[in-house]
């Protein structure tokens, strides 16, 4: 039971981290119709910038400055890159952001090399916040939960309670009308892209000490982020939240419980073949739940797509 609780908390951390990426991506997608393939690359940039800044000033300044820098870079890329490609349609935009992801990965390797960087959590948070039956839960993870929740609530507040949020929501549904009302839609687009990428950057900063800072960190998370928003339903913020949490828990529990197929199969009543290494069903017998963990999100995506093509909370196709 105690282990279960720890896993629930761990899964929550992973899920909320995923959601920080997904919410920015969803914001950009539903606003501009652009799926930002490079979203996880901005997350990586956030982590690298924070590392570089932390060498000079320590962790906390990096936490504030790095996302801002990422946001400014994101806005610049929207202004001088994406907007150029916009007139060709959404598919070329997607190709552009794909190229951007390649380029950012190359650039990161150019400046910081291929190996993992020593980026660790600040000393102030390097202690166990509490323990559940002997399993210590690090304070840094508590901090991550609070930051993610804070971001989510702020976003929700801005979108539903402020004037700029209303404008954004209106722009989501009726871009032409908003332009007629005198709002500068290209500027709004640029800001949304900047804010979305800054959120990815912030996720990178806080995830860096836990998941590691290395050139593959974008690829590691990139595909999962897309799968998550497809499962949740493209463009749905609540869907992204639900899907993020499902995937977070699914992956955590899959790695935590070392259930093997052998246990299940023998429990049902099959007997394990003697010479397992030459057996055609060898993989079925040696399969373990932690092995399956990385596949589960993709499997879930295929199942959701077959049963409910618009995603868990997506609007019906018109």
């Amino acid at each position, binding site marked *: 039971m105690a282990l279960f609780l720890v896993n629930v908390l761990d899964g929550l951390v992973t899920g909320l981290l995923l959601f920080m990426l997904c919410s920015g991506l969803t914001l950009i997608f539903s606003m501009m119709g652009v799926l930002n393939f490079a979203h996880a690359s901005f997350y990586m940039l956030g982590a690298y910038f924070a590392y570089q800044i932390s060498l000079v000033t320590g962790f906390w300044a990096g936490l504030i400055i790095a996302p801002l820098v990422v946001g400014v870079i994101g806005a610049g890329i929207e202004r001088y890159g994406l907007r*150029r490609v916009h007139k060709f349609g959404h598919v070329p935009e997607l190709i552009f952001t794909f190229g951007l992801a390649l*380029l950012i990965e190359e650039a990161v390797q*150019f400046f910081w*090399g291929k190996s993992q960087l020593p980026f660790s959590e600040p000393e102030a948070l390097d202690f166990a916040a509490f323990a559940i039956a002997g399993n210590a839960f690090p304070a840094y993870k508590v901090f991550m939960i609070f930051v993610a929740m804070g971001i989510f609530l702020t976003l929700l507040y801005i979108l539903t309670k402020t004037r700029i949020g209303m404008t954004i929501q209106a722009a989501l549904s009726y871009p032409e009308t908003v332009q007629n009302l005198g709002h500068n839609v290209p500027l709004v687009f640029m800001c949304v892209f900047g804010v979305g990428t800054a959120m990815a950057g912030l996720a990178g900063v806080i995830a860096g000490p836990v998941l590691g800072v290395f050139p593959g960190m974008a690829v590691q998370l990139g595909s999962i982020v897309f799968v998550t928003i497809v499962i949740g339903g*493209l463009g749905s913020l609540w869907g992204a939240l639900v899907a993020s949490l499902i995937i977070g828990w699914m992956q955590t529990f899959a790695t935590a419980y070392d259930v093997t197929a052998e246990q299940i199969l023998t429990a049902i009543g099959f007997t394990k073949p003697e010479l397992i290494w030459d057996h055609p069903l060898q*993989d079925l017998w040696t399969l373990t739940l932690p092995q399956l963990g990385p596949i589960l999100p*993709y*499997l879930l995506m*295929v199942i959701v797509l077959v049963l409910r093509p618009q995603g868990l909370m997506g609007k019906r196709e018109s």
Partner: protein
Amino acid sequence: MSLASKTPLTAGTSRLISLSNTMPWAFAALFLLCLPFVFQSNSALTIMNQMAITIVFALSYNMLLGQGGMLSFGHAVYMGLGGFFAMHVMNMVEGGLWLPLPLLPIVGGLFGLIFAFLIGSFSTRRAGTVFAMISLGVGELIAACSVIIVVFFGGEEGISGDRTMGPPVFGYEFLTQQEVYYLTIFWLLLATLLMYLFSRTPIGRITNAVRDNEERAEFLGYSQRNVRWISFCASGFFAGVAGSLFAINFEILTEENLNLATSGSILLVTFIGGAGFFVGPIIGAVVFTLLQTVLGLHTELWSLYLGILFVSCVMFFPSGFAGLVAMHRRPFALGKLHLLIKPYLKAAIPVVTSVLSLAAILEILFHKRHGYGGDHEMVLYGIAFDSSGYQAIAMAAVIAAISLFLVSRILPEIRAAWDSANHAESRT
């Protein structure tokens, strides 16, 4: 409407074989047949084989992207699965199954087709962004499975085979690289021809129609999903053929053959070449393979350059290299291509210098940052120098600045020449 009025309309189109249609193909075949006499080394043959495989793969990819408007991030799946099945069949041939090696690509193609049929059944319902995301998810799923299902995919080492164990074909056992080359180009020509012909069938044209305006096509009786699905299956078949050719050439397949990186690079190849043109992917595959093999030998930064090339291609010439060439059709038709020669020649040297000097800046920076154990000695373009100080990089920067300035001076001249070369005024 009698027979009399029918004949002239169709006379030009009903002949099955015409000279203008077959000439390019005959020429291409002759060219490919002669290549091994010029490039005789095994490594050159390997590069050419790799090029041929990439061409088939890129052309099959363009059946989706260029012809059908489907952006896929998981096309390597069909090439990889086709290749893995071909490899298993190759091993069964070793165990006694009778199958001549030249027929193996059909096997791989069929498996590519089967998987495209299964996955296409749900992925082709929508085009655009949704299709792209599903292709990515499925691609990741299969790449992840390949690590787990060791029996079939061979785990991290992959699976390997021996192509020479099949029955000899006209006395050939495919022991030498050259024999494999001829087998590969046979399939290259056949697959290219078939894909070209596919684009000129009713379904090929309707695929274009669905790409341009899916709604209109639906109101003409066509199910957009079925149209995309059929193209997707055909594309899967040729990707499987490419995978089998890979299996034959390299005799090993690993997870790398079906992962996201491979899928991404084929998008890059196709786009750089020009997705809007049938020959685009061919140009892209040749350029890419040359960059990878030749440039890759000389610099660690080749993939950075490739990324820069790709992004600037998307931003500045989205119709790719083929599009750049096709731009000159109008001046050529007007007989004014000669107007462009002089400005192009004038620009050539500054452009080349600026590219080289910008690359030099990157190379020197990279060497300064990642030089091994205080090794400051660096050789670039045949010049040896010390990269630790600021002299070298300053020099490269000065050269870059000067040549970029020269380029900017020549640009108006090129623009003016371009305008007049495209202007169809009556000659005085």
